């Protein structure tokens, strides 16, 4: 693991100077800010737009805190994960295709260090983003829906986090296996596509890691049980570990 701390410092400095930190904070701040106000004022907005009657029965007339969190889970599971993948996907593949790794690697920088640090920093950015969005959303919900609580909120957010980590863990292997500056996105994109299709197969659905994003909000109103998420969590966790190990092994013998 030669040069681990040197490369980690470089990654953090790069995230700071390339505005990656700032972009993550800004993007997830917006994602966190919009949920509670949207949930709270949607009936009024629709009323003002003159479509309130048409959508009667579809939109709850008196929104509750759960509506804000439902909006949050939906936003993060879609836009949030897409944003973090687009931001982190090229982190290793861009360096590989541009050739910036050649100088430190030929100085003895450990290849395992490169893969591990890239994954650590990607996870750090995702955790930071999710934390910002969760805290802001929690604050807004507290103000707009005072006194209302939801169950299993922390567990639901953790499951979202796990889904993000699972997809980010595919980035290093994708970057090693494929060529091109954006190649880090190929495997996460393909896996996402496969699991989206797999949602159509009822006998496989209980194992699908995408449930961690789609269904974790159901925990909050007791429409799902914690045990329902054990199998998808296991699939996500084991796949993440296996793909990371595969990336570590294959990058040790990758031509650059």
């Amino acid at each position, binding site marked *: 693991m*030669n*040069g681990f*701390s*040197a*490369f980690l*410092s*470089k990654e953090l*400095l*790069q995230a700071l*100077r*390339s505005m990656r930190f700032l972009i993550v904070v800004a993007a997830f701040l917006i994602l966190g800010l919009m949920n509670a106000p949207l949930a709270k004022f949607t009936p009024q907005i629709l009323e003002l737009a003159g479509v309130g009657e048409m959508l009667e029965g579809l939109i709850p007339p008196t929104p509750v805190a759960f509506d804000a969190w439902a909006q949050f889970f939906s936003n993060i599971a879609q836009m949030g994960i897409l944003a973090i993948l687009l931001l982190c996907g090229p982190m290793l593949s861009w360096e590989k295709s*541009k*050739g*910036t790794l*050649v*100088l*430190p*690697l*030929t*100085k*003895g*920088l*450990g*290849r*395992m260090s490169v893969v591990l640090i890239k994954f650590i920093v990607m996870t750090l950015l995702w955790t930071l983003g999710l934390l910002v969005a969760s805290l802001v959303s929690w604050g807004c919900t507290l103000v707009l829906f005072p006194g209302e609580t939801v169950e299993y909120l922390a567990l639901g957010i953790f499951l979202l986090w796990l889904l993000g980590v699972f997809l980010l863990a595919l980035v290093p292997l994708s970057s090693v296996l494929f060529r091109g500056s954006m190649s880090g996105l190929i495997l996460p994109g393909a896996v996402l596509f496969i699991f989206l299709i797999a949602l159509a197969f009822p006998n496989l659905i209980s194992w699908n890691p995408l449930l961690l994003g789609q269904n974790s909000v159901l925990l909050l109103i007791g429409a799902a049980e914690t045990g329902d998420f054990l199998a998808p969590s296991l699939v996500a966790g084991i796949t993440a570990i296996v793909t990371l190990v595969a990336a570590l092994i294959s990058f*040790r*013998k*990758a*031509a*650059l």
Partner: protein
Amino acid sequence: MGLLVVDSLSKRFKDLQVLDQLSFEVEEGSVFGFIGKNGSGKTTTMKIITGLLKAEGGQVYIKGRKVEFGETPTNHLLGYLPDVPEFYSFMNAYEYLSFCGRVTGMNSTDIDRKATELIALVGLQDSAKRRIRGYSRGMKQRLGIAQALVHDPVLLICDEPTSALDPQGRSEILAILSQVRERTTVLFSTHILADVERICDTVGVLNDGKIVLGGNLERIKSTHRRDTIALTLDGVSLAGLDTLATELRALPFVERLSLQGMAMLVDVKSVQEDGQQLLAQLVEKRLTLLSYQVIEPTLENLYLDVIA
């Protein structure tokens, strides 16, 4: 055993056999000019030496230690400057050198001392705190040499460090490499023969995947010296020169004679002995000599001879 030993290296890209049982050695303390035309396999060889590329056959040893493909412990022994070095452009030169020092496990005092010393060596003092993204190509090459030397490697490998530079940039890089030879062994690839003649003491000419000419540069030149004398004469017309050439060709010690404008190039068996006789002939014919020069073989001549 040389500091760098390349033994029977083979590499093929699809149908193209780039390296074909390539073997050569670089002795400690030498500046080795690795010569070859574009696409001859110089970069491929260097990438195999640095573990970045896998060879299909053969081995490479640095200081007796075998180079492995991928992560290789021999990389601690070398400094590498690729043909187009890519840096982290969000850093400045000082930060980049510090990063390289930390990667090699140096402590902060040594890093600070070394970075300051190398920045001065490559003449980047005025730009050391500027982000690398604003650097010219020449400045990047100079920083490239500095980063390659930060951990005092036993072998410095430079892949065409002067090829993409203007004459001034080229001259600066060659001056730096000349200074560097005091500290480390240098393997320097190029297709610019003048650069090799300026700083290298040993050469290897790569052609068709093999070394077709190699060894000490002076020894090669002396082995390939052809004993050619160039003469220019005063007051002789072109027609007179033709007549004289015919007469001189008939002499037993003249092996070959050609005219280049008003100059006469005479190949003899021995410059020392036959040169005297040639001069005697000219005196006898009452001809006035304007110049008499023994021609040294150039690397360019030798290179063109061996790759022809």
